[in-house]
């Protein structure tokens, strides 16, 4: 019978990890557990819960920096940022409704451990680009720090990058520092109506290659657009391609008009203003189109943007929509058998990119590679990196790859 260790401070984290290392007992590392259903199921009798390791420890808005303990709820951080009109510019998703867990319950540490970034990724960067500093306990039970609280820092290896997206398999983060940014004054969205996938991706490429600083470029086919809460999108009666513009009022108005003019050859355009824009991009960020039909598997594919439609056409199964100008494909299909794994991997093999199985029954996530399989040389290097942090493989073993 396993135990849950609930750490209230860094010393207790170290104590728990040191014990696990000494006993060679695997530990499941939990922030607040909201993304427990993401990744491969961890085989660990014991777990280390960080939800009491909570609280914002430093927030200096004019320095654009915020530090918090790893278990701090994202909601608490977002509220503090809201009060100062700032944000995490990489737009972290709340995947809880997609994964069927309680919404608004993720932690800052868990968010960084998964490096999940929303639609603004293409302009502002990913979570990893905003992760300035960390203190953590390695699988050796030693506390180490990397980075700092300043944006410009090349002192030593950037271990923040390694920990971001490591799904808790290298070290247990206890304290993190993020770069934050001002919230845009205005958000408009230009809608292009009725485009097929390939034309839509070309249109998004034109917009992203324009000087208009597009901060979101997504395409929903007709059936998925129809499910939007934004009436303009739902009532469009066809596919909707959306281009987000953010900034000071006069700039957004000017760019919105310019973009509509420049893309007029593609047919009808429409525009969404602030509230509708915010709702629409939140839906995309949180993968709302696939909240329903929870028996279906959901994949997240990252590919060269121009290849998005080709990848979807070649897989030729399920339903898909596009973010990141075509480079991010969300795909829902039957969870039967391998949930489409073999087919998706085959399609990506010659084209490059990777696919992650975001939602599927635990037995499918245990049996199939959830993350893109790596070639042997890369897998061997990654295993050596893991060895350097967690020689006994006690931290979230198998969460990313079997044996890692």
């Amino acid at each position, binding site marked *: 019978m396993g135990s849950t260790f609930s750490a209230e401070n860094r010393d207790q984290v170290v104590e728990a990890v040191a014990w696990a290392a000494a006993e060679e007992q695997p530990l499941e590392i939990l922030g607040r557990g909201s993304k427990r259903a993401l990744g491969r199921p961890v085989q660990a009798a014991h777990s280390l819960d960080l939800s009491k390791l909570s609280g914002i420890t430093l927030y200096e808005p004019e320095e654009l920096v915020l530090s918090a303990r790893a278990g701090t709820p994202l909601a608490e951080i977002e509220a503090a940022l809201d009060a100062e009109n700032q944000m995490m510019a990489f737009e972290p998703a709340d995947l809880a409704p997609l994964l069927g867990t309680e919404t608004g319950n993720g932690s800052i540490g868990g968010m960084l451990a998964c490096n999940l970034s929303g639609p603004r*990724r293409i302009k502002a960067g990913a979570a990893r680009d905003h992760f300035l500093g960390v203190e953590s306990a390695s699988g050796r039970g030693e506390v180490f720090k990397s980075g700092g*609280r300043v944006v410009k820092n090349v002192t030593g290896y950037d271990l923040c990058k390694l920990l971001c997206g490591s799904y808790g398999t290298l070290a247990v983060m206890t304290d993190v520092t993020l770069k934050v940014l001002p919230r845009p004054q205005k958000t408009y969205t230009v809608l292009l109506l009725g485009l097929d996938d390939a034309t839509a991706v070309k249109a998004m490429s034109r917009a992203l*290659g324009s000087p208009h600083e597009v901060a979101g470029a997504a395409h929903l086919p007709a059936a998925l657009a129809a499910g939007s809460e934004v009436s303009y999108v739902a009532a469009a009666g066809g596919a909707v391609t959306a281009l987000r513009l953010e900034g000071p009022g*006069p700039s957004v108005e000017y760019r919105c008009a310019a973009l509509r003019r420049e893309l007029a050859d593609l047919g009808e355009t429409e525009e969404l203003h602030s509230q509708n824009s915010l709702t629409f991009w939140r839906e995309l960020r949180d993968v709302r189109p696939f909240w329903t039909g929870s028996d279906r598997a959901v994949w997240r594919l990252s590919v060269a943007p121009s290849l998005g439609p080709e990848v979807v056409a070649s897989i030729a199964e399920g339903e898909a929509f596009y973010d990141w100008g075509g*480079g991010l494909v969300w795909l829902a299909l039957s969870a039967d058998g391998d949930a489409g794994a073999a087919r998706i991997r085959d399609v990506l093999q010659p084209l490059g990119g990777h696919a992650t199985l975001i939602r599927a029954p635990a037995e499918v996530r245990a049996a199939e590679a959830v993350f893109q399989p790596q070639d042997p040389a*890369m897998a061997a290097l990654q295993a050596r990196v893991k060895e350097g942090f967690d020689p006994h493989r006690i931290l979230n073993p198998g969460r990313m790859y079997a044996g890692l």
Partner: protein
Amino acid sequence: MQMPEPDQAIIDAKRDIVAALQAIVPGEGVIVDEDELRAYETDGLTAYKQLPLIVVLPETTEQVSRILKCCRERGVKVVPRGAGTSLSGGALPLADGIILGLGKFNRVLEIDLENRCAVVQPGVTNLGVTKAVEADGFYYAPDPSSQIACTIGGNVAENSGGVHCLKYGLTTNNLLGLEMVLMDGTILRVGGKHLDAEGYDLLGLMTGSEGLLGVVTEVTVRLLRKPETARAVLLGFETAEQAGDTVAAIIAAGIIPGGMEMMDKPAIHAAEDFVQAGYPLDVEALLIVELDGPQAEVDHLLAEVSRIAEEHGAITSRVSESEEERLSFWAGRKAAFPAVGRISPDYYCMDGTIPRAQLPLVLRRMREMSEKYGLRVANVFHAGDGNLHPLILYDANKPGELEAAEDFGSDILKLCVEVGGVLTGEHGVGVEKRDLMGEMFSEIDLKQQQRVKCAFDPEALLNPGKVFPQLHRCAELGRMHISGGKLPFPDLPRF
């Protein structure tokens, strides 16, 4: 500054090593003559010089792989080198090591505007990438001041920044993929044209690893569309505090300028004497704030910035009315280093980063140190992101001045760490700040970093003597000491 003790057996085996390398890189790609080796004896940190054993200039990834494999088999150390513009001695040679020069990897392999990226070889210059795509209206955002000479490979190794990185990020934020070769000859690809490659983020780890983990042989960079317009405003202040407060207020107002630079009085005067940029001479601090983007936005924000500056006591304010005038504002800043070079026989450029609010304190302490060491200091400062470049003026021909300048420099960097900052913002640790790493990191921190190194290069043959003050053997780092044996878990709360 001590480098690792040269291995006499390697030096004695030079002829054999040369023969082995010539079998891999035929023709003139292997340099052994002392006169020719001389060109590689130093980098941008010219205070340190060392002739390398051999220089090899491969042309293909396969050659790089064979060279590294060959060196590993023989236990020969390897120092990778791009254009040799490092300001921290990152490419300083070793007496018993080869220099692996990537200068012949100088081709732009692919421009893919549809996916807004370019695939280039590491020896392409930073500016060369922008030149290749500017006719189509695109550019590569990171712009270190040495961009005309420094290479993309070197930028990856150092995670180079530039004056526009507040808004557009450093090298690490502008890369999509790499091809690299490990010390054992393994060729690996990380990332590609897609975002956020899975698995551990080796792209992020490699960036800024200072040539200690692998040799980069191909780089995929993000391209951005050139902003519609850019305008700058010159703001003069009677105190550095006012300038610092203005910077904080601009950011608090939600404005992230394309560039925001500060210069102190000695730097202003040196620059103005050199390039006649039109800087005001009766101010203690000068800010150059550049806004870029759509015309409507730039005009709007310039008005905001001017208003904020006025509220914070700016005594001069001049907005660029033409592209020529904007460039002249920057000419003084970009020429600050050579300008200081004109008023002093030698200067030593530092590179700490501090939380911005600490600027007045740091400037005051620096003035005190300047008096203590009897050496002048001029300051240029990436004000938006807190990256300081104090230039310490000295004369290497005067006995003791170089040492005094070095001590002054370390005191400045220790001060940066003391106020919550870091040793280096964009120039790298190299040999220069290696022995100061203990100011910022504990022994455990440094050992953890070295365990990462062990995963890539267990024999520590790649660029040894850089970054880490003390090299531990990987076998020793791998050991785990568990005190008291296997204990039952003590009294953590459980539920």
